[in-house]
């Protein structure tokens, strides 16, 4: 590719402006405007693509609604009840509270599409419980909350998978199904690692909850546990669109915490709305930039150019997937996840198409990768969040995160090598890929 072509200069400008510290969304819009100018096209196209893209992509509305649902759940006492229920389930084993942390994340993940919301919701509570009486070191507790929160957006629903559906034109329903087994697999390897460490480090056991308490605890948590059933039921029975399912989930979370548990007042509702709106705006700006930049990719016909280039190399789909994994893992150490998903993945996607890699498999692999990126130093949002919540130095958390990072990358390799782990459930429900 000619280094002085408008497209190269556009990419260069986006990278340079981001490095100089502009918000990534603005950098993408500005770079694309530069492209339109250099290519002699109408610069109003940037506005046109942004406005039409935002105005017609109804699917994107699922994102603010999923954020809102998570905020509503966190503002009530849903988390409390869930924790007590999880404790009855796995607290009796060695390293019980640590296992509770992971199980709680798996359950919460099936209601929320956001890893940061999971850490924000359970982080404080889990930290207090785990470090009380010196049961666990603060660093281990914080590290564990960070890595278990990674499951949030892999097990459906999932905000990053909605974004991937947007850039790849893939069915959101099948993508969600594709995330189920990989998400559970990650949870299992984390729990296995805890079980192994628990013996060596002599983690404490929680007093076993007597069997007769179980019905009451389950009843207490029942409305919360019904949430995934309602959400996924709405989605897969075809009663509602994914976007409406997200709205239903938010309404249900609000109803449960406000009316059933009576733990949310008008003030909390207002605060949840404000927080969600702020998150929505910052992610929305990135989406706006991506819409404009994706238009540039389309008119430059990058997919075609790439597949012609690839003919020259003997690249197998597997080798390409491994290369993609490597690129995304390295980038995940330095870049913010949404940026990778909306800027880097669209560039990698056409080659995957050309090589015949299944788009659902590719999407789930990419998202698992990006989620692992949330806990890789030096730049990992979940790590930063736990530093703030637990008030533990970053380097201590990082040390405790490392073994988990190892097993999660192992699980990622497995998901990459065995596409059936991702595609089994979607195919069961009629996916033809």
């Amino acid at each position, binding site marked *: 590719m000619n280094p002085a072509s408008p497209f190269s200069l556009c990419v260069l400008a986006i990278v340079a402006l981001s490095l100089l510290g*502009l918000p990534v969304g603005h950098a993408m819009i500005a770079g694309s*405007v530069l492209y339109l100018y250099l290519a002699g096209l109408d610069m109003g196209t940037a506005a046109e693509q942004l406005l039409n893209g935002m105005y017609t992509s109804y699917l994107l509305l699922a994102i603010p609604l999923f954020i809102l649902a998570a905020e509503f759940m966190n503002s009530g006492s849903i988390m409390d009840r869930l924790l007590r229920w999880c404790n009855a389930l796995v607290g009796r084993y060695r390293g019980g509270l640590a296992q509770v942390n992971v199980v709680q994340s798996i359950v919460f993940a099936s209601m929320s599409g956001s890893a940061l919301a999971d850490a924000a919701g359970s982080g404080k509570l889990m930290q207090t419980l785990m470090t009380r009486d010196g049961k666990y070191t603060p660093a281990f507790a914080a590290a564990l909350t960070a890595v278990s929160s990674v499951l949030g957006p892999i097990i459906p629903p999932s*905000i990053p998978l909605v974004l991937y559906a947007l850039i790849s034109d893939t069915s959101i329903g099948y993508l969600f199904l594709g995330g189920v087994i990989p998400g559970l697999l990650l949870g299992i390897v984390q729990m296995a690692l805890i079980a192994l460490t628990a013996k060596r480090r002599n983690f404490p056991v929680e007093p076993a909850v007597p069997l007769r308490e179980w019905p009451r605890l389950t009843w207490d948590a029942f409305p919360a546990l019904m949430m995934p059933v309602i959400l996924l039921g709405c989605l897969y029975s075809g009663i509602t669109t994914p976007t409406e399912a997200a709205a239903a989930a938010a309404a249900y979370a609000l109803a449960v915490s406000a009316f059933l548990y009576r733990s949310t007042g008008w003030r909390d509702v207002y605060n949840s709305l404000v927080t969600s709106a702020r998150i929505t705006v910052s992610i929305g700006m990135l989406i706006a930039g991506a819409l404009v930049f994706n238009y540039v990719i389309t008119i430059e016909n990058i997919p075609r150019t790439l597949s012609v280039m690839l003919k020259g190399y003997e690249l197998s789909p597997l080798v390409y997937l491994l290369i993609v994994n490597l690129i995304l893992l390295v980038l995940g150490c330095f870049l*913010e996840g*949404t940026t990778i998903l909306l800027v880097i993945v669209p560039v990698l996607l056409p080659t995957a198409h050309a090589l015949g890699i299944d788009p659902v498999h590719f999407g789930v692999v990419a998202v698992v990768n990006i989620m692992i990126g949330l806990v890789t130093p030096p730049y990992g949002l979940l790590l930063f969040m736990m530093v703030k919540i637990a008030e533990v130095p970053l380097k201590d958390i990082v040390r405790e995160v490392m073994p988990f990072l190892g097993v999660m990358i192992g699980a990622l390799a497995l998901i990459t090598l065995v596409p059936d782990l991702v595609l089994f459930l979607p195919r069961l429900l009629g996916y033809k890929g």
Partner: protein
Amino acid sequence: MAGLLGLMFVAFLLQIAFRYFFNFPVGWSSELTVATWLWLVLWGSAFVLKESEEIRFDLITSAVGPRARRAMGIAAGVALVVLYGMSFPAAWSYVTFMKVERSSYLHIRLDWMYSIYLVFAAAVIVRHLWLLWRLARGKDTEAPDSRTASSGL
């Protein structure tokens, strides 16, 4: 801004209610939801979001000294103002041209619907001019804090 999101939420609930409980699908609610989404993002980004809340790549800006950071901020700000400024007339003519179309249910003229982009672009330019002026007078930019940026992941 919370109002816009609240409105979107309520419109969605009405939409589902109308469709399933009254068996009477309505189009205006879905139109209202996309309109609130568009306005929420552009309005919020132009006027509400603080510099420190935006998603940016701050590994370098937070590592260099204040002098270098100032220089980088000025370079980026100038580029942004120039590029947004250059595209503003074209965006203006696109948006005003959209007066020929109306939305299908609420019959809002699309130039009104889309005018938020012009407000947004103008606000971004003014905001960065103001930041540039501060930088030129030797004030440091707000220290980037990656812990406050929230991306919904």
